């Protein structure tokens, strides 16, 4: 027992070439630079962070507020500066921290814009801050801000490999469900939309292809990190990585995500591969490596454990995570469902019991409405916001003046999940201003009937 423990410790902390870490740094910085610029060029800063008058904050992060108007471009510019600093390895620690802070700030503003790969970028940039990825092939070394090193303890590479493996593996686990495997939904719905393609259109509209993609996708996600990890299977595995992600890029509007994965999985490649890219010629032998005492490995271990645990939060809630979405986010549930909803809100005068139907467009952007209409935590947040808007207001309709002191806010929400007929998700039985926004199970969500 003692021996194997030691063997593991030695194996993860032995000295390895810094080359993979350095190449990863450049690739990662290039990706974040590209995707930040793309985001700005597409006009999404305005669309998603300047135009909305109301934002959906994450629980506990309500204090994070958008900068007013065009000032919202500042965090994006900081992301660009940080990315360039990461690529060049110039003031690396500062720029890694800068990128992480600016990027995470943006992501925390509005959960409407939550994407798993944004979460991944936040996590990886957080890790990058702690990794000595600037100690070779960098301006920090060139300008002698720091000393060049050639060898690093292996766990610095392992933690990145672990992070990427985790994304795949949990994405695979999430696919082990009835809809995905035995109904091939939502892929069946998404693929049939390509029915007009020449030659392959009929296949795209055929259920068997959806089943093939579903099962292959699940198998791929569960196993690809292992196939990438072992040298013997690495080449063929990477071939599949490229094919798989390009296929998803062609078929679905998932932006830069496929490229993120294609590029970042290169962390699994051999040291010699990375050495070639940056012309790394070691002068030290790995035996000379001296591991400095540090709390960092312990911290990284702690980080890994949290990462392992977070996706299982959903087990703390009643069944039906796709329906109530409690414990849904931050769990690598990618491309798993097609949810369409219609959410209608009512401001109800407690005296007359008469109501005002809300036109959501008066308060939210189309993207926000689209996301909110199927996600209960956003529904209750919006209801609270409406409650504040109508509290202590006097409304004038022709001759009639009505004072609303503390009106009820009710919602009627219908949602269709993975091609099923729509069903009631929230009924007007509840005054949502009375329902708190917290981590407890939301009893006002109507149960899902399959």
């Amino acid at each position, binding site marked *: 027992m003692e021996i194997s423990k030691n063997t593991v410790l030695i194996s993860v902390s032995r000295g390895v070439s810094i080359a993979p870490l350095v190449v990863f740094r450049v690739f990662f910085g290039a990706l974040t630079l590209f995707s930040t610029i793309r985001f700005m060029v*597409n006009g*999404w800063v305005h*669309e*998603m962070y300047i135009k909305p008058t109301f934002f959906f904050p994450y629980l506990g992060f309500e204090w994070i507020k958008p900068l007013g108007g065009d000032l919202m471009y500042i965090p994006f510019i900081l992301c660009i500066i940080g990315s360039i600093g990461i690529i060049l390895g110039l003031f690396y620690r500062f720029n890694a921290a800068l990128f992480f802070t600016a990027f995470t700030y943006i992501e925390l503003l509005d959960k409407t814009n*939550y*994407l*798993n*790969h944004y979460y991944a970028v936040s996590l990886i940039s957080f890790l990058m801050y702690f990794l000595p990825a600037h100690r070779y092939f960098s301006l920090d070394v060139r300008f002698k801000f720091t000393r060049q090193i050639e060898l690093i303890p292996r766990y610095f590479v392992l933690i990145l490999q672990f992070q990427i493996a985790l994304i795949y593996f949990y994405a695979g686990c999430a696919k082990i469900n009835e809809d995905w*495997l035995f*109904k091939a939904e939502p892929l069946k*719905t*998404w693929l*049939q*939309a*390509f*029915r*007009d393609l020449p030659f392959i259109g*009929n*296949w795209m*509209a*055929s*259920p*068997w292809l959806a*089943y*093939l993609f579903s*099962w292959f996708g699940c*198998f791929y996600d569960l196993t690809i990190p292992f196939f990438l990890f072992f040298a013997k299977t690495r080449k063929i595995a990477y071939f599949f990585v490229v094919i798989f992600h390009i296929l998803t890029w062609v078929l*679905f*509007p*998932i*932006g*830069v*995500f496929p490229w993120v994965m294609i590029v970042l999985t290169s962390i699994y490649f051999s040291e010699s591969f990375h050495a070639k890219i940056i012309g790394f010629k070691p002068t030290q032998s790995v035996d000379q490596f001296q591991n400095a005492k540090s709390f960092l490995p312990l911290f990284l271990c702690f980080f890994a454990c949290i990462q392992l645990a977070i996706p299982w939060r959903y087990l703390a809630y009643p069944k039906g995570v796709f329906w109530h979405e409690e414990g849904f*986010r931050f769990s690598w*549930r*990618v*491309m798993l*469902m*097609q949810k*369409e*909803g*219609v959410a209608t809100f009512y401001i109800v005068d407690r005296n007359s019991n*008469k109501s*005002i*139907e*809300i*036109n959501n467009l008066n308060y939210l952007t*189309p*993207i926000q409405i*689209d996301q909110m209409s199927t996600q209960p935590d956003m529904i209750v947040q919006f209801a609270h916001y409406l409650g504040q808007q109508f509290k202590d207001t006097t409304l004038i*309709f*022709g001759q*009639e003046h*009505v004072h609303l002191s503390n009106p009820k806010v009710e919602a009627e929400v*219908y*949602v*269709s999940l993975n*091609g099923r*007929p*729509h069903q009631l998700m929230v009924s007007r039985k509840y005054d949502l201003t009375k329902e708190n926004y917290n981590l407890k199970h939301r009893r006002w969500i109507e149960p899902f009937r399959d």
Partner: protein
Amino acid sequence: MKRIGILIITIGSLLISCKEKDKGTETNTSFDQAQILEQLATNYIVPGYDSLHVSLLDLKSSWNTFLTNSTDENLARVQANWKRSYIHFDRMKMFEFGPAMNVGLAAALGTFPSDTAQIESNIVAENVNLQTATNIDAVGFNALDYLLFNKNKLNAIKSDVKTKNYVAKLMDKMFNEVELTKNDWKQYKSTFVKGTGSSSTSPFALFINAYCKDFELLKNAKIGFPNGTQSLGVPLYEYLEAKYAGIGKIVLIENAKALHAVFNGNGYNNSSGIGLRAYLDALSKSDLANTIDERLNYLHKHPESWSGSIRENIEMNQQKVTDYYAYIQATTVFLKTDMTGAFGVLITYQDNDGD
């Protein structure tokens, strides 16, 4: 060896599950979205814009006749052409994408209620730019409704030059906007019929979204607002459409009929063809198709049975109108969740990892 074993098991179970699933569902894989778009463009949209264009031309020429000879008879002709054009417009305004969207046709022609004070000040001021956002409720069919059907304006349109000029200006603007849209469609048609797929920028997705939007507009603007859904049940008659001419009910029915016809794939002149209904059938969702068909049918059949205008119906029996509104609302859910869900059409235009 182990891995090969897993692979065989995977593919094996895959084939079994495919077989089991395919028994009950007869999906028609050879059905193409392009058929819907082709039929829609050729048999509905192009002839529809032609009809709207022609009737607006008639409106203009009848106005010119009225200018030279301001008789009640000639005014009646203008009014009849206005009404005919309005009906054509309500059969066409659901296509607010591509050329119509570039022009902003639906808002330019169909905004109501109109701002009569703004109209009056525009008349006095002359030479105002009618393209501005502030003038959106001083133009279009409802501005003409105020000028042509309001008994208090009868003298003005017969004798006041500034009023006459304003009417002509409004008609020219509407005609030009429709003409531009109609002409743009000549080029856009080929893009449109090839624009299949589910991406949010594909014409098919644009069409589905515009269709749902127009449906919601019918619900909110034509019925909901005047019936008091957003005012604690207090009816707001000033929000009624075409209230001077009193044809709000007629255009409501025509709008609903058009949405029904397009769903079923009917042409502008009622020829039958392939529409959204057929697509749902091909996806083996005939139950849903039947439900929507039935509901869309009720939406125009029910107000046809009402005697009197929308206003009179709200005054006599508000609950009946409220029930009708609730029926439209429930139909919206079928269109916006079940139907768009079945088509896999995306309504957001940004990246999405599907969650």
